[in-house]
């Protein structure tokens, strides 16, 4: 319950920031996908049924404020949770560097997933044209990831939430 509580609040804050401050930036891609960083954090550091449920919830909440297909981000976020959980378990650690790399990959995965789901196959070059924007957002989100991880680690400690063994 503590995990659900902490990450629910964090998700609301992340989405509030994403949906308001994006308008102040010259380009939308400059806004990091903070909700996705939370999902990656769950996958890397919390292997539990509640964490899986929360990853799904973050995806569903993102669907509420993004795009026109309910369930798309819910599906992609739960896949990100599975992949990052697998990564964390196979590497037997989840350092900040691994987190940054995982976030970078996850943004590309999510954005490509969104793009493919809505792909205009009549214009196959569309995906290629979108790649620079996807890579920029992935890089910016990855740069913000350590700060988000640190904040979430602090929040977890403050409520006595146990994380998987870390080497930060």
């Amino acid at each position, binding site marked *: 319950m503590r995990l659900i509580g902490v990450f629910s609040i964090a998700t*609301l804050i992340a*989405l*509030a920031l*994403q*949906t*308001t*401050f*994006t*308008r*102040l930036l010259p380009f*939308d*891609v400059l*806004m990091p*996908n903070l*909700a996705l960083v939370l999902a990656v954090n769950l996958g890397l550091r919390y*292997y*539990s*049924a509640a*964490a*899986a*449920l929360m*990853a*799904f919830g973050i*995806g*569903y*909440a*993102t*669907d*509420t*404020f*993004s*795009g*026109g*297909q*309910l*369930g*798309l*981000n*819910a*599906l992609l976020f*739960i*896949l990100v*949770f*599975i992949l990052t959980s697998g990564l964390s378990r196979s590497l037997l650690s989840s350092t900040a560097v691994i987190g940054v790399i995982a976030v970078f990959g996850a943004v590309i995965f*999510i*954005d490509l997933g*969104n*793009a493919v789901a*809505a*792909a*205009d196959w*009549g*214009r196959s070059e*569309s*995906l290629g*044209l*979108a790649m620079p*924007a*996807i890579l920029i*957002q992935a890089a910016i989100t990855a740069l913000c990831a350590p700060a988000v991880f640190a904040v979430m680690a602090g929040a977890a400690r403050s409520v006595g939430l146990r994380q998987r063994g870390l080497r930060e």
Partner: protein
Amino acid sequence: MRSSFLWRNRVILTTGTLLILALHLLSSGVRPDARASKPALVLIELLRPFQTFVAGITGGSSGFLHDYFALVGVRRENAELRRRLAEFDSQQARMQELESENHRLADLLELREVLATKAVAVNVIGSDANALSRTIIVGQGSHGGLRRDMAVIANEGVVGRLMVVAPDAARVLLIDDHNSALDAIDQRSRARGIVAGVIDDGLTMKYVDRSEDLRPGDRIVTSGMDGIFPRGLLVGEVGRVSQEGPGLFLNVEVLPAVDFHKLEQLMVLTQKPPELQLEGQN
């Protein structure tokens, strides 16, 4: 109990169940305003006060912010003078902003009279959570008379349609989103097609027969055939026309009339007008 199969595999089973649930949501095409998506409406309402607050502070006040940041680092002896100058500038920026807002609202009012239909003015309070999707959030909802699939327009032209309507907020699917499509015609040649958003942030006009005579600069207007947008509203103008590749249709790039990154005050058509006669407007 803890040694049972279900308990030992609870994470895998939960994840699998959630995967199936997400696939079900996606494959059954649950619309964002369907009964199954009631929690989504709660979420929209939950964030609305914050979005309205931030939009109130930042909406159109970029001049003030820029002025503020420009003053950072001034020398100490000029601090007082510059503070007063900043105050003056911010007041001036605020006055200009109010004047500009006044003009926009007056334009909207004039447009509403031209449209001869019922319409509600709305403020933009939020944007999409994902950079690749094109939706915005407006600060009016079903309490203000808004319903799903109502047309949203600006002074310059078509903006989008209402996709999700919560009690006091609503999400608008912009016409440059890759999920959007609207029936449109070329004003000069009368060629008809579907204007849709593309993933790389732009508009394209699809299904235009190769035999049609479309030229760069032609104005594209709504046809009124999709049952959402009234006939004759400006969508944009033709940018590039090509016949590359095989196929029956032209590749038509459309330059939108509206700058989707600078939307502030919009109008929602709450009643479908009989028929518009705006095609001759310049």
